């Protein structure tokens, strides 16, 4: 009997709520600044707009230790395999924010070397438009990710996997 076939009784939903509570209030971002939007992300981590109060205390440089990948900036075709590789090297559960117009759709760069949106190669959870978006928009995106995590159920992500 797999965990996915469990009915959603009170025990499972309480466990879900506990696990989702833990996950959403301790999201560690992976810094993936590619261009100018990275600076807005840095400001969002600094004192005036503080993302540490939402649980993103440390921005990890390594994908093995991060939950949330924030692609901030223009993605060129030369950089695309690296983005994909780093996304694959992150451990589940993982989420992706496409930050800025270039990461959402390619921005103003309709050219020969720009990938038209980072969702051509990795799945994205939240899109943040703007060129560049204000740091407050980043906090809004973080809160949206938290709302998304809150509604996750056992069917999408297993809570435990008994070998």
């Amino acid at each position: 009997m797999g965990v996915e076939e469990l009915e959603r009784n009170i025990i499972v939903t309480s466990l879900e709520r506990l696990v989702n509570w833990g996950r959403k209030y301790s999201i560690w971002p992976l810094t993936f600044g590619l261009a100018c939007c990275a600076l807005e992300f840095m400001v969002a981590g600094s004192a005036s707009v503080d993302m540490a109060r939402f649980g993103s205390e440390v921005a990890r440089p390594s994908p093995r230790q991060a939950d949330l990948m924030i692609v901030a900036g223009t993605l060129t075709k030369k950089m695309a395999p690296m983005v994909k590789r780093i996304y694959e090297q992150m451990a589940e559960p993982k989420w992706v924010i496409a930050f800025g117009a270039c990461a959402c759709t390619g921005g103003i760069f309709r050219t020969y070397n720009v990938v038209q949106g980072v969702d051509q190669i990795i799945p994205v959870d939240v899109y943040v438009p703007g060129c560049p978006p204000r740091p407050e928009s980043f906090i809004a995106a973080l809160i949206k990710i938290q709302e998304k995590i809150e509604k996750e159920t056992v069917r999408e992500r297993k809570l435990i996997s008994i070998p």
Partner: protein
Amino acid sequence: MTETRKNSILEALKGRLVSAYEFREELTLIVKKEDVRGVLRTLKETFSYDMLTDLCGVDLREPPRFAVVYHLHSMKYGDRIRVKVRVEDGDEVETVSDMWGCADWLEREAYDMFGIRFKGHPDLRRILLTDDFVGYPLRKDFPTEGYDFDRPFEVRLEEEMA
């Protein structure tokens, strides 16, 4: 640049220039493809233009099609000079990467964007675009979107292909 320095430069390079002009106190020399290394060596050693600040290609559409532009700067005298050379499509220019180390990557960029080859370059290959890119984007007949804009973009990682 002082008048005496300009005159001494023009005097020293008298037979090797195609033309020279000055615009707003910037001196530009136009040389033939075969004389490029000699002229630049004279400028570097005799007139102490010891810094190459830029090496770029230009697509001018009228034959000879391309121009390679060298911007030199003299740290001792504090002035700048520009050297232009016209190249045909498919021709080779001699490399200056042994005189200035930065010319290595600048020539690779000129090759990557225009297709101008440099004879004697230690490692002439693409630098800004992916290795399997077809075409030279900064030429005037290359469309901005590229040739395969309509096809969806796919990435295949080496570990998965092995």
